[in-house]
């Protein structure tokens, strides 16, 4: 069993990211603000995997990208290894980049098709001007071996690999500079079921071996449940609930989490036949024009007048279990 320390490696404090929008077509150029991420606070401990889940448009990807400073936060703080990096510019971020790596969803488009695997994996060495002790080629081959690829394939090109193998290349690239935290944005959702399990296990193994911390951003709740120690549930840019995985999946307190969990089909027909499924009405509201009060109130079966008026704050309902709801489930 791996150990999770109490040391906080990454902290998002009231993180907020708004995008200006000109959506609406040429004849109706309403200037609007998309509140992609709105006042989000959570932390990732050393050696821990935090799952960040939600449906499309909930802001989970934006959180991931803002944390690695692909976007500048509109407000709020990002504290990485004790340093507030929210206002860091490119130059100041550079030395930190090696410690804070990202893995992307699409293993087909995130690797340069004209570079060999060797060049892709060692690119980090160039950017940061590092030469590993054992020499670059040796280092790359060790990394390939670590992620379960044949080290002899160092001179091959991405198109010679399958989707799962490409995702492994992406992981090797992220690992090259010995990061302490990896933000994985939907790392397995483009992969086939039988390949997904391989990559999930690889991420597990690497964590055990290298003591990595993960922020695992995904929409697939089954995978998130499997890989995470703690889970943060987002809806329309806001955190609805966060708790330890087992607690969240067995005793969800926020109506949205409950509905979300009940919507995930279970590969077990007997369970499916008897399961109570909450079918939410309607669609996700536009993040350009989110509902007043609790953002979930338009689809919530428990919503009352209070929910339409007052934004519920995130509070601790039981130890290490936070929700933002006026009328929590039992």
């Amino acid at each position, binding site marked *: 069993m791996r150990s999770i320390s109490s040391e906080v490696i990454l902290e998002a404090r009231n993180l907020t990211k708004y995008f200006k929008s000109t959506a609406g077509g*040429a*004849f*109706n150029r309403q200037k609007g603000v998309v509140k992609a991420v709105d006042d989000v606070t959570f932390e990732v401990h050393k050696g821990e995997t935090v799952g960040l889940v939600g449906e499309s448009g909930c802001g989970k990807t934006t959180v991931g990208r803002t944390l690695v400073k692909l976007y500048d936060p509109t407000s709020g703080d990002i504290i990485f290894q004790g340093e507030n990096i929210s206002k860091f510019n490119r130059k100041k971020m550079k030395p930190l980049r090696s410690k804070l790596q990202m893995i992307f969803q699409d293993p087909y488009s995130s690797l340069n098709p004209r570079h060999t695997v060797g060049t892709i994996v060692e690119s980090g060495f160039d950017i940061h001007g590092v030469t590993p002790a054992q020499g670059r080629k040796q280092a790359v081959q060790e990394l390939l071996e670590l992620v379960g690829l044949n080290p002899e394939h160092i001179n091959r090109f991405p198109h010679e690999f399958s989707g799962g193998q490409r995702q492994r290349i992406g992981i090797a690239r992220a690992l090259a500079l010995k990061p302490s935290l990896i933000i994985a944005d939907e790392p397995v959702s483009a992969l086939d079921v039988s390949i997904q399990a391989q990559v999930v296990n690889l991420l597990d193994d690497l964590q055990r071996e290298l003591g990595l911390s993960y922020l695992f951003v995904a929409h697939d709740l089954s995978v998130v449940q499997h890989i995470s120690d703690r889970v943060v549930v987002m809806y329309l840019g806001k955190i609805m609930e966060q708790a330890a995985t087992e607690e969240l999946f067995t005793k969800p307190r926020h109506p949205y989490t409950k509905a979300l969990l009940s919507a995930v089909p279970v590969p077990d027909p007997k369970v499916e036949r008897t399961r109570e499924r909450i079918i939410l009405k309607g669609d996700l509201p536009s993040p350009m024009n989110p509902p007043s009060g609790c953002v979930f109130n338009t689809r919530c079966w428990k919503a009352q007048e209070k929910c339409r008026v007052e934004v519920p704050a995130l509070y601790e309902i039981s130890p290490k279990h936070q929700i933002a709801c006026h009328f929590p489930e039992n």
Partner: protein
Amino acid sequence: MLKYIGRRVAYTLAILVLISLVVYLIFDVLPMDPARLTCGKTCRPDVVEANRHRLGLDVSVWQQWWRFIVGLFKGRDYAEGVAAFHCPAPSFGYSFNRHECVSKLIGQAFPVTFSLALGAFVMWLALGVSLGVWAARNKGKFVDRASTTFVLVGTSLPTFISGILILLFIVVKFNLVSPIDLGKWHNPFTDPFGWIKTFFFPCLTLALAYAASYTRFTRSNVIETTAEDFIRTAKAKGLSARTIMRKHTLRAALAPIVTIAGLDFAGLLGGAIITEGIFNLPGLGRLSIRAVLQDYDLPVIVATTLLAAAFVVFMNLIVDILYAFIDPRVRVA
């Protein structure tokens, strides 16, 4: 929608004002002095100054520009005394070289250029689009390969070669149009046959060059659209291949052509210098070339430049409005 159009029109006008200003400023910093060019080597300075005053060049460039703008709306008087001359609104200036109001010169040249551009536009669209669609539907077959050859020849053959070839081998050799008739303006409403005789071959010359790139563009767009999911949906509905092509594929594939065609047409309205030259057509292209190279006729240059810019800017507006009718995604959300 109306609000949008209003805003676009205002924006367009602002751009035109800016362009006219830039044109004036450019000619102001050029080292040539039009007043000095009005008389020979032995010109006395006081004559030059008098001419400068007559040309209206003795005031600052800002004032010259302002007078031009005012003239556009109010008309303008030139020179004084016996030589005085009035150009009614919209006055684009007065050409002292040709002793004509520029608006009159343009009025004579524009129908020629417009005929040429419109004829060529219709020809190249008809030819390019139909050939492109035909090639796309027979991808990899003989028609497709033949069209590829046409595209290659058409895009690599400049109009001054194709124009001369057409002129020599078709018009002159087979005596289809007598050289005397060539370049003669016929009113299309009173003498449509004469008009066609004058313009058919020049239009063809221009159209050939454009048709090639339209063939290529149409072909690749149709092929791309055919692979779209919504075409598969149309097929799954049970529509016939004909209906799918006509209603679904072409609608989506040809929409982007509106943009390009509009701008290409606008570009030609400013004058097709080479083609007009070859076929001896007194259009805007010839007018501006003469003004620039022979006469250094500033008012004509300003007017033709501005006109060419205006066509492009207005056509842009028209294309945008048209596009909104074609593609609902551009319309109000």
